[in-house]
């Protein structure tokens, strides 16, 4: 017996002290009042959920731009001797300024990186800014405070950093996306992290898609109801609920340590000096593949199950074998669903941080990954590292990186929704 068959009837219990007619009328008002109160409670709860989401998104946007108190070693206004502002000067005009202000050795290093003629105007400008003016961010304010309390901010800056400069800074820019990692929040970018993420995701797709789909086909089309297949099915459901950090520990033990000759590339003659031990893109990719495999399988199974049996029967009726039926009839019809499920699973892998930290993401790399045996970092890892630093400006670039991550995820999810709407068929 379950509870619903005997709902509590306290409110309907007749009260024999009173005449029958009163009874119903008396409690009805009260019951409706209670009902109205609770309806408001339910509504408020829902609004709280929506407010949480809105606050989260606004908070992140709020941090991506705002005033920043920047202190220069040498004020950009006084660097130029000709009266022209630095932004207006051409590269050949900027070069002498650079030569005048930096040491000979440093100039030679800069020239060796790229000669004058190949540099664009912005590159030259940035060089002069960072090499000569040497700005440091002292304090930043979020957008909302910048708009409301401009006077206060100005007064604060004038008092605390008399030589400082108050500028409105947008932290998410093209150069932020295209620059490698750096210790200086003004120069730092997430190119390295984006490339790392893409490399890892590529491995995840290459491994988890075929294996996941194959396992789904096996379980839905081939497996009979026996003990082993039941164990496999239950096991997959359980694996889907294992915390991601456990997969990180598994990856650390298996891919990073046990299979180190393979994952470090040593077995294949890659002796990249930067990839000490197995903490490589390959290890990270394999770990995340295992992590999303159960989800890919479960989604694949659902898609295959949605293909009506009549299609299979028709195919068998024409003399097709089991595999021919699966390959030519079941799979093409299940593919949109499978792809949607896989993309959603991949977008989960894209945002994962904990397993990658455990597997051994590099704390600081400025060079782009070259092969799957390179050290790795990823966008979420970068966000984690920047969030952990106390200075204001790192919070701003962490927010900028979050925007990049959310946009990438949005693109992935929109693709999934598009595929589902465009190709899914109702039987």
């Amino acid at each position, binding site marked *: 017996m379950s509870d619903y068959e005997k709902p509590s009837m306290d409110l309907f219990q007749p009260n024999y002290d009173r005449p029958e007619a009163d009874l119903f009328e008396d409690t009805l008002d009260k019951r409706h009042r209670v009902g109205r109160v609770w309806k408001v409670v339910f509504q408020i709860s829902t609004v709280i959920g929506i407010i949480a989401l809105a606050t989260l998104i606004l908070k992140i946007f709020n941090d991506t731009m705002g005033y920043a108190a920047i202190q220069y070693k040498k004020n950009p206004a006084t660097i130029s001797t000709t009266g022209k502002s630095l932004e207006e000067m051409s590269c050949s005009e900027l070069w002498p300024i650079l030569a005048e202000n930096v040491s000979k050795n440093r100039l030679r290093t800069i020239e060796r990186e790229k000669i004058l003629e190949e540099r664009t105007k912005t590159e030259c400008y940035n060089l002069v800014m960072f090499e000569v003016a040497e700005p440091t961010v002292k304090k930043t304010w979020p957008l909302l405070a910048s708009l409301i309390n401009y006077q206060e901010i100005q007064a604060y800056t004038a008092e605390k950093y008399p030589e400082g400069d108050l500028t409105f800074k947008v932290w998410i820019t093209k150069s932020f996306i295209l620059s490698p990692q750096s210790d200086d929040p003004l120069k730092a970018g997430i190119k390295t992290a984006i490339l790392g993420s893409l490399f890892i995701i590529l491995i995840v797709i290459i491994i988890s898609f075929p294996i996941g789909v194959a396992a789904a086909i096996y379980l839905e089309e081939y497996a009979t109801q026996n003990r082993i297949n039941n164990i496999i099915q239950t*096991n997959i459901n359980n694996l889907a609920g294992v915390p991601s950090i456990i997969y990180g520990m598994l990856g650390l033990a298996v891919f990073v340590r046990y299979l180190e000759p393979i994952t470090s590339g040593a077995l294949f003659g890659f002796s990249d000096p930067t990839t000490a031990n197995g903490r490589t893109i390959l290890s990270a990719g394999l770990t995340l593949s295992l992590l999303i495999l159960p989800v890919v399988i479960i989604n694949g199974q659902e898609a295959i199950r949605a293909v009506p049996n009549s299609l299979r029967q028709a195919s068998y009726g024409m003399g097709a074998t089991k*595999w021919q039926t699966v390959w030519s009839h079941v799979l093409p019809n299940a593919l949109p669903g499978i792809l949607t499920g896989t993309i959603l699973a991949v977008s989960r892998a894209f945002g994962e941080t904990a397993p990658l930290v455990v597997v051994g993401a590099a704390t600081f790399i400025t060079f782009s990954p070259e092969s799957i045996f390179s050290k790795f970092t990823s966008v979420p890892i970068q966000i984690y590292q920047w969030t952990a630093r106390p200075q204001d400006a790192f919070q701003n670039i962490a927010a900028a990186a979050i925007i990049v991550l959310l946009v990438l995820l949005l693109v992935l999810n929109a693709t999934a929704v598009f595929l589902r709407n465009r190709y899914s068929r109702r039987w």
Partner: protein
Amino acid sequence: MYEAKNAQFPATSTDEADYMDLRSQPRIHESIIKGFLIFSGVISILTTVGIVVFLGQEALRFFTDPQVSLVEFFTGTVWQPQIYKFGILPLLSATVMSSLIAMGLAIPIGLSVAIYLSEYASQRIRSIIKPSLEILAGIPTVVLGFFALTFMTPLLRSILGNDVVQIYNVFSAGVVMGILILPLISSMTEDALHAVPNTLREGAYGLGATKLEVSTQVVLPAAISGIAAAIILGISRAIGEAMIVAIAAGAGPNFTINPFEAAETMTGHIVRISGGDISYDSLDYNSLFAIALMLFLFTLTLNILSQRIIRRFREVYE
């Protein structure tokens, strides 16, 4: 051999060789394909075996070390690997505390949202709010960790005072974790409520029940198995969640029951230690596997329990 254009029906053909050979033939490539399919299915088993074997193996190394005693591991209140103190209670208490805070927030609000969406809201409102809340569930946890540290903590500090709330504290991590789990609970509960057939509702209305009475005394009890499963999954998720607590809850084991103090959870500890320079085969390294094994066993038990509840107590209508 059979060829399509020469095919003739046996009845009209007199030549034996033209008959279709209808006996099943061995198809080597199909067997190979089937082998690959089975192998793919078995990989999931290998993953589980891998988790148990490798976690178990390293954890065993930890427990058999002369510096470690099992009793101390489960009862000790100090976790300081430098002086060989391995008591899991400080880590466990922080995990339990943050999960309790998260569930304390997520269960009442999640259930209210689910009841509102399933019983009160119009189809249009439902189709807007439900996906919006599911976006919350899809946001990477590192982003929520950022939110906890840079929004929730300053907010708490401005309300309760800087001397009450530490910069890193379990409470704000727990609250944000509640925000993460809320959509999981509301979505699964809403599905369960939605599956309750309308006849039950109409029966109750016929008896003169108000909307609230129908929702809470008829529909909710009827969907209790789905709701219980959702709550248990939520707990399992809270225990295993790593990034929010790693960022916002603090970096150092602390045996306390004050949620406004910094404390490190099991997952937070694993993230912090493995993110630093750690030498393999050290006691410190092996201890992480012992913690991970505990974590795995906790969450596995909860997940199995959740599935059992769904299977045992599900009301099948029609």
